[in-house]
């Protein structure tokens, strides 16, 4: 059994959860799917004195688990599980890259409980959602203990390893993503893992927009797993505007990724050099797939159907 005892709270609403956070200060922790926090507690690496369980909220009137859409965006409740993101018809239709990402996370059991909100708040450098959410310019909605809401852009949300822009009394309620199924737009997430179900050694998210003549309007690439926070490859964004995205350009983008990813993380799964080389390869694969999807839309025959 875990060493340190803790008090357990099961608030019925998000408001109740944030007031508990405020009351107990930094010794309290929110519990979402528990797929990162409970193992850390079992290992003694986290020892909160109060656990504020969000799983009771989603079933009641004040849900944190939902997917809705308006003209420009999808709204995803923070307690939406990886399995739900993987299967949601709305997400598959309007933001395929997120469903594709969810499907690469861990295994069925972890996906059945782990949540998108928990993943981004945990902010593991190898967390799969991080790169795609930054690449598609997601926004995070949070409320604090005075029930005041604010919106934080994905670019500003991830501050450091396991550290986000959220304040101690804030709770993430929603993730908003711009709809991706636009003409001549394609996006893709590809992941290099050491074993099925493992964390990303490198995860590459690419978003490609093409002009009517087929040349590149914009290409964004963001990597998970190489730095403490998701790495946006700025050089690639600058270089290909107005150019054709042929194999030579994609080769060049890979080289730019290699150059920009200097001294990436090193751990038991991959050395720094290996991660750097894989950044080249997975950047190329992500762009190639995103570009194919952007092109495929023109002929109305998309592989996502």
């Amino acid at each position, binding site marked *: *059994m*875990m060493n340190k*005892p*803790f*008090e*357990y709270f*099961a608030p019925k609403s998000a408001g109740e959860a944030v007031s508990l956070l405020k009351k107990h200060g930094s010794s309290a922790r929110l*519990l979402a799917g*528990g*797929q990162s926090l*409970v*193992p850390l507690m*079992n*290992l003694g690496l986290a020892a909160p004195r109060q*656990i504020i*369980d969000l*799983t009771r909220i989603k079933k009641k009137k004040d849900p944190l688990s939902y997917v809705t859409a308006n003209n420009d965006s999808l709204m995803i409740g923070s307690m939406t599980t990886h*399995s739900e993101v993987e299967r949601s018809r709305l997400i598959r239709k309007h933001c395929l890259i997120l469903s594709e990402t969810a499907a690469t996370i*861990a*295994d*069925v*059991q*972890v996906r*059945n*409980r782990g949540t998108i909100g928990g993943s981004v708040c945990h902010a593991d450098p190898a967390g799969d959602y991080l790169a795609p959410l930054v690449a598609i310019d997601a926004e995070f909605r949070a409320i604090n203990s005075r029930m005041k809401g604010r919106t934080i852009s994905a670019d500003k949300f991830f501050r450091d390893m396991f550290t986000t822009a959220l304040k101690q009394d804030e709770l993430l309620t929603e993730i908003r993503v711009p709809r991706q199924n636009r003409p001549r737009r394609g996006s893709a997430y590809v992941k290099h893992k050491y074993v*099925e*179900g493992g964390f990303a050694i490198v995860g590459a998210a690419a978003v490609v927009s093409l002009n009517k003549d087929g040349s590149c309007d914009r290409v964004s690439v963001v990597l998970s797993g190489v730095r403490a926070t998701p790495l946006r490859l700025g050089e690639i964004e600058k270089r290909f505007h107005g150019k054709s995205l042929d194999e030579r350009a994609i080769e060049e983008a890979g080289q730019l990724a290699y150059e920009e990813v200097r001294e990436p993380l090193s751990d038991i799964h991959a050395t720094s050099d290996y991660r750097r080389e894989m950044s080249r390869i997975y950047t190329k694969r992500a762009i190639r797939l995103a570009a194919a999807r952007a092109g495929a839309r023109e002929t109305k025959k998309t592989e996502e159907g």
Partner: protein
Amino acid sequence: MPRVTVKLRVNHEKKEVEVDTRTLLVDLLRDEFMLTGTHVGCLTGNCGACTVIMDDLSVKSCTVLAAQANEADIMTIEGLSPRQDGGGGGAKLHPIQEAFIKHHGLQCGFCTPGMILSAYQLLRRNSKPTEDEIRVAIAGNLCRCTGYQNIIKAIGAASEEMRSRAGKQSLRS
């Protein structure tokens, strides 16, 4: 020590207990209810030996607090084989269990309850999985004995058997 009351259904039986808040779902099942078919390999969510079905979804019960299972419906390996009255724990084995025996899908048996419940989760959603789909479905369950091949065969065979039984049943009615 802070304690919490948990009311839940386990293998169709209603239960109510008061436990230390630190109790994991797997501890509750093994130590309070003596359902020791659910195994513990790692306590970090990696091995899958503790897999159970919670509200129709497979979960790793070492990553769930007992308190989180309040009001939940849990099925463990002991509840898989159907009883005459519709409950679990009957003497007759489930087709997945039979297929594991027939196709040598187990050696030491440590991973088996979790493996079988992952197979059960797969076959409830997908009655005719491909070999690749079977592999993905058991990615969260480690086996250190079999080399997985016979497990994959067993799950494939179970899916055939279950489809053929379902077919016979629909012919009869």
